[in-house]
């Protein structure tokens, strides 16, 4: 009896260990999600996606014949904000991403002269002051210049005491990720352009044309070996092969989007080939034989019967590829570089979202908030892709089973 109890106790203990082990993954996933959403949700808004990363500085003044407005604020101003009725703007003290004290614009009345500034540089372009811009200084004709480090209250007081300004220096907010989002999209498009024809072609050869034997087995094992190569090694290859190649063929001066996409294409090759081949395998042989019996050539059969039937599988390959491209960092650090840029061109050096995180985290000081915001975007996309892949696979399987029955 006691031996039985001992066994029960041991079984209970062993089962408890499996329960405990499984909670590790659950806790890890919840912790990661809590962390990135907790740190990143504050910066997550539409402006982030459309704005530049580099903040841009401007020196501006009023158009001749401006009028002070004496307007009443149309919105409830946040606490700690100083409003000037005479000029129609509200300012408050704030700190920027680097922890420097700045004066932030909270509100600009539509009739305020600050809503009609012109650039003092070349061309006198109109450059209106907007909410969230940081004011660096306001210089007056007679009064001393109001600097941001004296605070928002001083700046408003100086403004109220004057009837005009000589010039105002301010900078746009920056910290946006438009450039990196665009780069990631361009990379996805280019990489698929390189990888899909070769990958699908190779899969078609291996599954439709190659005789079962040593040759095709050898080809397959060479392709499979690629999966074991760490991505940093792919980066080295991109750096040594594709970067010089693109520099020679295009106007690029160093790592660029084309060399990055080529490197990614090689990384994705085994994934695309394997997924496509799996979907080719489940196309019933009846289809092929029926097509050939009707007089279609082998080529016609491949393009008009086999490939269309395998389309869901190829779609899955594309979605898997997109997920991998979005997440890839180490290879791109070498194959493109880590320069965060706002102007995106094929031969330029702008970088993807994942490398954007790495570049900011290895910088001093690390920008954890913006990194977490980008991580939210990446994780949401990757999880959505996963769900889509599951949906496609499930529907496809059901349909196939239906055909079989």
């Amino acid at each position: 009896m006691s031996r039985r109890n001992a066994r029960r106790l041991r079984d209970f203990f062993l089962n408890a260990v499996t329960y405990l082990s499984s909670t590790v993954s659950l806790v890890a996933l919840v912790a990661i999600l809590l962390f990135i959403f907790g740190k990143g949700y504050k910066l997550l808004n539409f402006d982030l996606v459309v704005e530049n990363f580099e903040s841009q500085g401007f020196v501006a003044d009023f158009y001749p014949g401006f009028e002070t407005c004496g307007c009443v604020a149309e919105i409830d101003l946040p606490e700690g904000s100083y409003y000037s009725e005479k000029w129609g703007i509200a300012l408050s003290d704030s700190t920027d991403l680097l922890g420097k004290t700045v004066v932030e614009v909270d509100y600009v009345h539509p009739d305020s002269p600050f809503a009609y500034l012109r650039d003092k540089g070349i061309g006198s372009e109109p450059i209106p002051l907007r909410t969230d811009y940081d004011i660096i200084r306001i210089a007056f004709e007679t009064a001393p210049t109001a600097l941001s480090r004296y605070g928002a209250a001083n700046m408003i007081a100086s403004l109220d005491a004057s009837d005009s300004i000589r010039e105002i220096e301010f900078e746009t907010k920056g910290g946006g990720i438009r450039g990196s989002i665009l780069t990631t999209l361009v990379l996805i498009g280019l990489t698929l352009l390189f990888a899909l024809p070769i990958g699908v072609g190779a899969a078609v050869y291996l599954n439709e044309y190659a005789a079962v034997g040593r040759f095709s087995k050898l080809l397959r094992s060479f392709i499979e070996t690629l999966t074991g190569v760490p991505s940093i090694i792919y980066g080295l290859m991109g750096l040594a092969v594709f970067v010089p190649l693109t520099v020679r063929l295009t106007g690029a001066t160093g790592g660029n989007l084309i060399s990055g996409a080529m490197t990614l294409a090689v990384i994705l090759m085994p994934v695309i080939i394997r997924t496509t081949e799996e979907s080719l395998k489940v196309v019933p042989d009846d289809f092929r034989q029926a097509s050939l019996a009707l007089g279609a050539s082998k080529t016609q059969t491949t393009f008009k019967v086999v490939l269309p039937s395998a389309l869901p599988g190829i779609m899955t390959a594309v979605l898997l590829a997109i997920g991998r491209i979005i997440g890839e960092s180490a290879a791109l650090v070498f194959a493109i570089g880590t320069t965060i840029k706002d102007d995106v061109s094929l031969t330029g050096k702008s970088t993807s979202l994942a490398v954007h995180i790495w570049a900011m985290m290895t910088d001093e000081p690390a920008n954890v908030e913006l990194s977490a915001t980008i991580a939210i975007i990446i994780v949401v996309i990757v999880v959505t892709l996963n769900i889509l892949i599951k949906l496609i696979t499930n529907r496809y399987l059901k349909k196939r089973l239906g055909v079989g029955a």
Partner: protein
Amino acid sequence: MTGQDIVATMKNTAASRRVDHLAKGVFLAAALISASFIFLIAGIVLFRGFIPFLSDNGGLGRVDLFHFLTADVWLIGQTFVSNLYGVGYLILSTLFITTLSLLISFPVGVLTALFIAKVAPAPLAKILRTVIETLASIPSIVFGLFGAGVILKLVYDFSMAIGYQSKGGNSILATVLVLALMTIPTITSISEVAIRSVDKTLEHGSLALGASKTQTNFKVILAAAKSGIFTAAILGVGRSLGEATAVSLVAGGRRSGVSFDLLDTTGTLTTMMLEGLKETTGLDYDIRFSVGLVLMAVILITNLALNAVKRRVGSVHVKA
């Protein structure tokens, strides 16, 4: 069918046969290109990696291969003297970190797989499988960010609590934890497949002999799935050895001396390759390929060794 028709049909057939040949050629070319990339990678890394050992590096002198492999100091300061490069300590700490992370991720991963496949009630297993899939799909840079934002802080607080001066939490411990978290989903999903494919008759036999469900799980099923579970471990090790960006955010970039102190900073082959990417020519550029070459050699040797062990351990062969 008139004679003309027959001629036309024959012409058509000939044309379509030419198209077929052409198509086959194109598909074959695609397959050959895909298969050749592995040689391109191996070739270029071998070629570029050996340059520092064979040339005089633009006047800096030839790097001594033996010194490079055994030295415990990586270039300190800005003097570009070739024999200041050494990766011996990096090889050791890379292997040390990988072993420690496997010590965590292997038991946790395998037990999670057993739980999902055999122990958990169906709804719970479904949830956990989704959790594992999601965790597996999270890119490594996000794990790195999590490590830098959360694990570094935990390690720092812990070391402060025991009175240890930590460098912001950058440590072996933090690196090991990040790598363990990243490899758990890999090990779990592959082990689960192995556990599921164990022959049902083995399980039934064990139960019929009076063993409890739990005893069967641990003594029969895990033993029978040994080979697949070992494969999972090998893949996990491969991922740990090659991981770069996530590790570089928590390791601390140690430049000399191997340290086995869990709270001390560390460096791996990959983190050293990521450091100082400014140079585009010269020894400082070429030496990265040498480190890459060492990394590939380490991965290859580890893989061969583990596979040899796997064959030794063997799998339980049961005729159904």
